[in-house]
């Protein structure tokens, strides 16, 4: 009888423990369904160049059940401003951060500091020098390849030789690895083609106080290595202020497409910003779900768009991402 009682209590205890475990699993599963909050900090976030990237972010957030918040930034940020924004987002409950790192000293330390609090994903460019081992993964277009592709397209138009031609290179992000890679890719691409790079403006922001592009010495070809400079160059070309210089560039805004469509830009290299945005969220979600797993560095593709192919199905899709 006493043994029976012991067996009874044992069975009930085991069942109660199993009950509690299942109940805990049920609650855990619900907790697991918790929507991850992701904050995105982009410089000049309202710029049309981010349309495709934002759409990619949005789509990935929908696919991965994440809540996305793109912080509104008026223009370029300093390291301190960016840090303050990121801290604020963390205080507001962000589970992960997607950030376009600002150019400048101390960014890497700042991001590493933030990365110790919540997972951080760099987007567009990286501040870390050794990407493969960095604890701060990055989703970005392959800037070097884009620079090289731009050089390639340029050479196609000039039968492989730039002999006797003068070039002006313009960009607005001198310290970022993105600019360096693009410039390096382009320079490597035209290294054997002759031609003279008459000037390189690497901190061109297009602000009124700056010297306008037409004020720079006359060149035959203007290479714009980012969207903002490309729009400036396209506008100047549309206004016929570039003394007949042809514009080649890298851009990812509807305006860039417009100037290509309008004939002010000869060739446009378009980074796959949708995928950059999509992959950054996917990478961050991966990092949130598996904190100890290293997220690989993602270099994404680009498209070469010319006026003739502007309305091809693929390019319409690129435009579609920019119109959303």
């Amino acid at each position: 009888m006493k043994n029976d009682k012991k067996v009874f209590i044992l069975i009930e205890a085991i069942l109660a423990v199993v009950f509690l475990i299942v109940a805990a699993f049920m609650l855990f599963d619900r907790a697991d369904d918790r929507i991850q909050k992701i904050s995105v900090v982009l410089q000049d976030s309202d710029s049309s160049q981010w349309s495709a990237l934002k759409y990619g972010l949005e789509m990935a957030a929908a696919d991965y059940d994440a809540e996305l918040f793109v912080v509104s930034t008026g223009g370029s940020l300093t390291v301190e401003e960016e840090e303050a924004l990121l801290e604020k987002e963390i205080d507001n409950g962000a589970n992960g951060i997607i950030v376009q790192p600002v150019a400048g000293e101390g960014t890497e330390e700042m991001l590493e500091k933030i990365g110790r609090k919540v997972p951080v994903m760099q987007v567009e460019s990286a501040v870390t020098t050794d990407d493969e081992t960095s604890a701060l993964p990055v989703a970005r277009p392959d800037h070097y390849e884009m620079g090289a592709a731009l050089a390639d397209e340029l050479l196609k138009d000039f039968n492989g030789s730039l002999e006797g031609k003068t070039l002006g290179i313009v960009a607005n992000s001198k310290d970022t690895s993105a600019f360096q890679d693009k410039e390096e890719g382009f320079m490597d691409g035209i290294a054997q083609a002759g031609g003279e790079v008459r000037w390189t403006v690497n901190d061109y922001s297009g602000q009124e106080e700056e010297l306008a592009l037409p004020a720079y010495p006359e060149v035959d070809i203007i290479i714009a290595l980012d969207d903002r400079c490309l729009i400036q160059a396209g506008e100047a070309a549309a206004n016929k202020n570039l003394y007949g210089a042809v514009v080649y560039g890298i851009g990812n805004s509807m305006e860039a497409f417009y100037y290509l469509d309008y004939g002010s830009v000869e060739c446009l290299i378009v980074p796959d910003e949708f995928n950059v945005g999509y992959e950054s969220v996917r990478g961050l979600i991966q990092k949130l779900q598996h904190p100890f797993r290293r997220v690989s560095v993602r270099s994404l593709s680009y498209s070469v768009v010319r006026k003739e192919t502007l309305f091809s199905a693929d390019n319409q899709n690129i435009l579609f991402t920019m119109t959303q």
Partner: protein
Amino acid sequence: MAAFSLISIFIMLAMGFVMYNQFLFVTREENVQNTQKLIEQTGKSLEDYLVSMRQISDTAYYNAIKESDFSRENPDIQVKLNLLYEANKDKLRSIALYNNYGSLMMAEPVANQKENVDVTSQSWFEQAMNKKENMHFSTPHIQNLFDDGTQHYYWVISLSRAVEITTSGVVQTGVLLVDMDFSSISWMMKQINDSQNGQYYYLCDSSGEIIYHPRQIQISEGIYKENAVVNGGYEEGVYDEIFDGGRRKVVVDTISYTGWKLIGVIPYESSFTHGMINIQYFVVLLMLLTFMMIVVVNRIVSVRISRPIMKLNDSVKEYEAGEKPEIYIGGSLEIRHLGYSIQKSYEQIDTLMKEIVIEQNERRKSELDALQSQINPHFLYNALDSIIWMIEGERNDEASFMISQLAKLFRISLSKGRTVITVREELQHARSYMNIQKIRYKNTFSVDFQVDPSIEDCCTVKLILQPILENAINYGVSSMDDCGEIIVSGKRDNGNIILAVEDNGLGMSEEEAALVLTDSNRVHKKGSGVGLVNVNNRIKILFGKEYGLTVESEPDEGTRVSICIPEVPYTEENRKKLEEGNIFSIEDTGEIKRQGDSHEK
């Protein structure tokens, strides 16, 4: 009980399984029905929208273009088109009219046509010119016609038709293009694509070209796959299919006028199981709780059944242990009946036991009486023979002495019918007997009584010394000439009384001495025939098996017969107890002795 538990668990598992599957089935059916309804409603809205576009196209054509001559009424046509555009501009991107060479004749809103645009190569123009009798809806595309200066590109669905344009009385074919803003359709589709359970809706034409898909870009980027080509070929209905490794239900509705397919996709894995995880947990928890309840109920039932049995068992055990508890009667009818039966059995056993004890006592008493009665005739014969012999020899004094001794002997023998007498009376009896025998044997032997006086007030069975003395005389000293000696001794030894009869007669061998107390069938050569076996049995019957006679003998040395009896003080109470058959154990004798002492005091 184990079988009951197993059956209960099996039924519970089966019920859980059936319940879960039934719930899953109902949920699926409901989900499919809801999807069908939603698709029908959305399809109707889309059709309404497309009908309104057709109506705009019809209005533009029949009210403004067909009946007018462009050479004369161009401004009027423009006004009409403008009014039409303004009335529907929330849905429209533009209304444009092209001649058969692809030249723009009129457009609303008025905008610059882009340079170098060849509309004749655009699909909407080609379709309109190829099938002039039809209206043609294009798939969504970027409008590549006008430059409104906003540096913006618009997604439109083009509704194109061939029209007759009259210019200066000459009728020529042209194309009327109504570009609908895709955002209206996109908005409608987004409204129904807000599900979080993996279910989604998309729109494609009959060839599978996607018009709207919530993951349109993911599909074009290769991140996601869609079975649009197959789904576009489906008729209206519900289909089960396996695509990209996943099973799913596809609900298809066809949009009139366009042949477009509105498709709802319900993946089995996510949609049907969304929220079912909790149901699964719930079913498991429910089963666990039920199992716990079954165990508790089992326990209660088993305790309810077993407890009365256990109590009954306990009371039976107590009974077996010698206690006299009430037999437990409780629990169910059967257990109560069992209890009653056992109780009744024990009562009967008690009654029978008492009857057996009474019978045994009576039998013992009758045996004792029979044994005692064996003595009397033998001795009487002997004594009377001696008296006769004396009277015949005219030894009257001796005869008188003999008769007086015989009288004493018989008085003690009778002892008012008592079996237990004092040691003193027994010794007196022995003396009387020996006096008679000495006369009979002419004093050929001597008798010496060496008895501790303090034992004389103890109990003994009467007539135990006389047969021993008789044997001592007959087998010991009778054949000796004047040198026979019999010593009767009595002493206390470890709470017992030892009475001994010792003679210096012929004695016997060890084997023969052993047979004296065991072989009751021995033929007595001499004496009364009442052997030592008789005496031994009487002592054992009355005092217990640990008491009795001991025979020690050496041939030609003599024989010593010792009587061991408990030291029981002679009181009326002790006498009665002994006579009633209450055998005293060795431990009891001390207590009885003390009681006796206190009585004496």
